[in-house]
């Protein structure tokens, strides 16, 4: 019997999928005052972590801070539910320091669900979106599998790996979303019907083992930090978790590798069963063993899945080998000789929307008012998903409110901007992961200054409360006044000052210097400077002091980067008209013509980043646009 459709409620914004992208999108839209529906296949999997139970790390941790500065939820949520916190790269410069937390995955899901439930203007409902409602080239709602027709001014799709998902474990293969959830099998077909190009990607997850059967004594402990750090600028230091859970490090060995090699004929990755493209940076263990045959061991981190469970995640052991082989592989590892496998690892194949079909707002070029976000756009990782979800949710919210000006993050604004620009300009041939090396301005895109970069914009969007904004302005004022003071107070070459310098192994002063100059010396800290100058009028927060040190010590490098950014911004200001007819431009090289037509860059700067578009093509394009502009003005 056919499901009978009926008209359900109307909303301003509908978000499909309540993973890390969908949760952020729905919260942002609702917080901007839009009546929002968040539809998800299974309410028990809101903000669920089907893979590693951790948040942050290099580049990704900075995204979490950016989400926080823009009024998103991920930072708050992990600060409520972490079991371990660790700052990575502490021996390196400020631009690459990275915070990472181990999450209690169940608590993380519950906390996010709770926040969503208590968010005004936001309705959370279980259901599967089967098709889009489309009128005149615009998406005006969705139809759920229950027959409910929901109409809205804008729609965000964040279907994750559920889109025609297929789980593969050795010879076993079945239709499934992540973690054995229901897949979404209809929506992809509907998207194809509307002209969207989809492709198959693949990712995977390792087995989970019973912690009571791990011999930790033969592995090495990886404890959390004593020093206080949180993701959200809002979380007070006082709530820092004392009782943290450690991770444990062990290794594969030649026996493990032999088991894998002996069973390669049963590995779906190599037997040709898996068609999807997997990520290079997240290879399965069988992949690593084949590609790096000369390595006789690989690191494995044992990570807790939560405080109230004995399930442990075996990081580095992602696999789609048959269950039987997975067990043998695990038992060959030191510390896991008697480990009970609780869930086998698996590979999952799913549909993604080719991201060149998107604008920098994450709106699709094919259907107006339709946005896509997260893993569905070809990325990998919770943080990447959340960042896109926030951006798509904001833009869907602005559209619903009839705002003309979209919200765009540039490459020089945020890692989120780098990611989105990469996706829509270059596309991706594998699940996309953010790396610090993808950001050409990483010295500017630091985790310590995400609030300085983005809080203002979050407040303008209505996502940062007045109260928090006031606090932020106070921090900014304190920073600026202290910098000004250090730039005016002088330190004289007194006996104490020079005794201090000699003790540090530095050259003593001959003449007086500005306090700011003094602080620029590599061996000097802000605290040191304060011994020799009067105390500031108000006591400074540790984060303000950190800012002062970074801004002064690395000033030369920061200035150089800012000069490059200023140039880029001028190029970004050069808009390409939306209705430009590339066929009418004489002289573009064939490759450039094809690429420009396909990608439809919005600015000259974006056009320069398309591979195969040369300076001459950019010159011709600029002249053509200027010609059109003059014609309009004079004609």
């Amino acid at each position: 019997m056919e499901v009978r459709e009926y008209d359900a409620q109307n909303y301003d914004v509908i978000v499909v999928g309540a993973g890390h992208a969908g949760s952020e999108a729905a919260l942002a839209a609702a917080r901007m005052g839009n009546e929002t529906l968040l539809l998800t296949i299974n309410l028990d999997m809101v903000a669920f972590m089907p893979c590693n139970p951790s948040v942050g790390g290099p580049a990704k941790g900075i995204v979490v801070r950016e989400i926080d500065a823009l009024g998103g939820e991920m930072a708050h949520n992990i600060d409520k539910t972490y079991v371990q916190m660790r700052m990575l790269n502490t021996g390196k410069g400020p631009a690459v320091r990275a915070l990472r937390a181990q999450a209690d995955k169940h608590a993380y899901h519950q906390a996010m669900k709770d926040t969503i439930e208590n968010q005004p203007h936001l309705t959370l409902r279980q259901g599967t979106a089967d098709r889009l409602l489309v009128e005149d080239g615009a998406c005006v709602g969705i139809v759920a599998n229950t027959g409910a027709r929901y109409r809205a001014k804008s729609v965000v799709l964040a279907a994750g790996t559920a889109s025609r998902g297929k789980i593969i474990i050795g010879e076993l293969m079945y239709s499934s979303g992540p973690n054995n959830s229901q897949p979404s099998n209809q929506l992809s077909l509907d998207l194809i019907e509307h002209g969207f190009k989809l492709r198959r990607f693949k990712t995977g997850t390792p087995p989970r083992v019973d912690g009571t059967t791990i011999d930790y004594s033969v592995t090495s402990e990886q404890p959390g930090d004593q020093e206080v750090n949180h993701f959200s600028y809002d979380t007070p230091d006082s709530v820092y978790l004392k009782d943290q859970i450690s991770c444990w490090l062990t290794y594969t060995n030649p026996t493990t590798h032999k088991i894998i090699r002996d069973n390669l004929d049963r590995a779906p990755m190599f037997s040709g069963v898996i068609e999807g493209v997997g990520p290079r940076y997240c290879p399965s263990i069988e992949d690593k063993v084949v590609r790096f045959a000369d390595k006789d061991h690989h690191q494995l981190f044992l990570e807790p899945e939560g405080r109230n469970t004995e399930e442990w995640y075996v990081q580095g052991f992602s696999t789609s080998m048959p269950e039987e082989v997975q067990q043998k592989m695990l038992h060959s590892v030191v510390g896991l000789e008697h480990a009970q496998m609780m869930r086998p690892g698996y590979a999952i194949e799913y549909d993604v929307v080719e991201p060149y079909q998107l604008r920098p707002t994450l709106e699709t070029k094919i259907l107006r008012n339709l946005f896509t976000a997260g893993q569905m756009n070809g990325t990998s990782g919770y943080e990447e998903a959340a960042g896109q979800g926030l951006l798509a949710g904001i833009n869907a919210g602005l559209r619903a409110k009839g705002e003309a000006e979209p919200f765009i993050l540039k490459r020089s604004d945020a890692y989120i901007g780098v990611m989105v620009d990469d996706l829509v300009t270059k596309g991706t041939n594998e699940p996309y992961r953010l790396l610090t090396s993808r950001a050409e301005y990483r010295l500017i895109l630091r985790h310590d200054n995400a609030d300085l970069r983005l809080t203002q914009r979050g407040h303008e969007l209505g996502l940062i409360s007045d109260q928090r904004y006031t606090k932020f302005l106070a921090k900014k004022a304190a920073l600026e006044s202290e910098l000004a003071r250090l730039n005016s107070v002088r330190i004289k070459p007194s006996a104490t000052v020079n005794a201090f310098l000699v003790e540090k192994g530095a050259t003593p002063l001959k003449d007086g210097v500005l306090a700011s100059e003094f602080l620029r010396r590599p061996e000097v800290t802000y605290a040191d400077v304060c011994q020799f100058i009067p105390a500031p009028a108000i006591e400074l927060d540790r984060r303000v002091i950190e800012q002062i040190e970074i801004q002064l010590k690395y000033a030369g490098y920061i200035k150089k980067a800012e000069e490059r950014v200023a140039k880029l911004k001028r190029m970004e200001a050069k808009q390409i008209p939306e209705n430009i007819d590339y066929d009418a431009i004489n002289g573009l090289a064939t490759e450039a013509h094809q690429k420009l037509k396909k990608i439809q860059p919005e600015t000259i700067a974006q056009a320069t980043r398309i591979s195969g578009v040369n300076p001459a093509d950019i010159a011709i394009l600029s002249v053509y646009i200027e010609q059109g502009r003059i014609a309009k003005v004079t004609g």
Partner: protein
Amino acid sequence: MANTTTEFDTIAAISTPPGEGAISIVRLSGEDALPIAGKIFKGCDLQSVASHTINYGHIIDPENGEVVDEVMVSVLRAPKTYTREEMVEINTHGGIVATNHVLQLLLSHGARLAEPGEYTKRAFLNGRIDLTQAESVMDLIRAKTDRAMQVAVNQLDGNLSRLIKNIRQEILDALAQVEVNIDYPEYDAVETMTTQMLLEKATTVKKQIEQLLATASQGKVLREGLATAIVGRPNVGKSSLLNYLLHEDKAIVTDVAGTTRDVIEEYVNVRDVPLKLIDTAGIRETSDKVEKIGVERSRQAITQADLVLLILDNSEALTDEDRALLTATQAKKRLIILNKTDLPVKLDEVELQQTVAPEDIIAISALTATGVDQLEQRIADLFWGGIDNSQSTTLVSNARQIGLLNQAKQALEDVLAGIKAEMPVDLIQIDMTRSWELLGEITGDAYQDELLNQLFSQFCLGK
């Protein structure tokens, strides 16, 4: 790490046709035109002179303080200029070599070589040219680009591109290692890249770039010609040889004003070796003038020469003058030419062989053209063999390449300065990456995915 070419760069190019006329113009356009020109100009403060004035002074190579050329510099401030941007026009007098040098200095000090048609493009974009011309501007850009690409490909020597690719790979290995340390801090299968290791790497790479830059002078010889003096006492046959060489129609018939403006230089091409013949006028004049002047001029010519062709009369015994010239040319690369082999031999070749290697003594008859073939072969051998031919075809030859190499060198110096100031490795990395990008601009490969590919092929990374 995207394409660094932008519309807001200050651009430079030689805007007069190459090789013609005694004056050439190097033109700069963009907001930094004045400060960049100021870095290499001595005479007055260009930034403080009035607009649309022409100023006398010298172009100085800041690296060694050497005067490159005597110039007139026009300062043209925006918006009343061709491109409506700040412009500087440097009028050089020193011929194509000096002009190229001026351009190269500008490119080493912050300007970028103009893309084909870029001045016209800027003029149009800034509203200087009217709409009806837009189509022709686009045609011009495309036409010029196609030709320029052809030229660029031809100019990029195979050895040079291989060498630069090797250097880039070396930098890339270091970069990838640093990136792995940053993006995968817990990955323990790779050594942590320390600033000490970067110091070693930057020092080696910088040395390699300096060596490449040194070959630029050999490239210069190829372009400029090997300065060659034909000397000998009167009536030994200097003009006959000169005429023979010129008469062969191998001559490049351009009269290029030399650095000492009163001397005319003539070019001949001997088996692909361009010879710049010094003071050919002197050779012609002195044949019937007093000897003293002749010898004096010979000495002058010898000092300037890279190669000396000393002619002796085979039909007469060695004179004191001959001996004096033999002594004067001893330190030079030289060939001793025994002319007039068509006449009976009177010269004592044994005496000659005490100071000259036998292969450098060539007997000819300029009159009957016997032995000239042998002479030409010897000149070619000397050039390709004698003048360091270990990398005989690795030649850094144009201003763009030299400019980019100098900038890459500067970036490496910044690396070293950063290490000295105890900056963290990821900041040092910024300048290291910059040098890698600049080198990539020479060979035309500068795309960011290279680094990611390196990362994931070299290291086994993942969760």
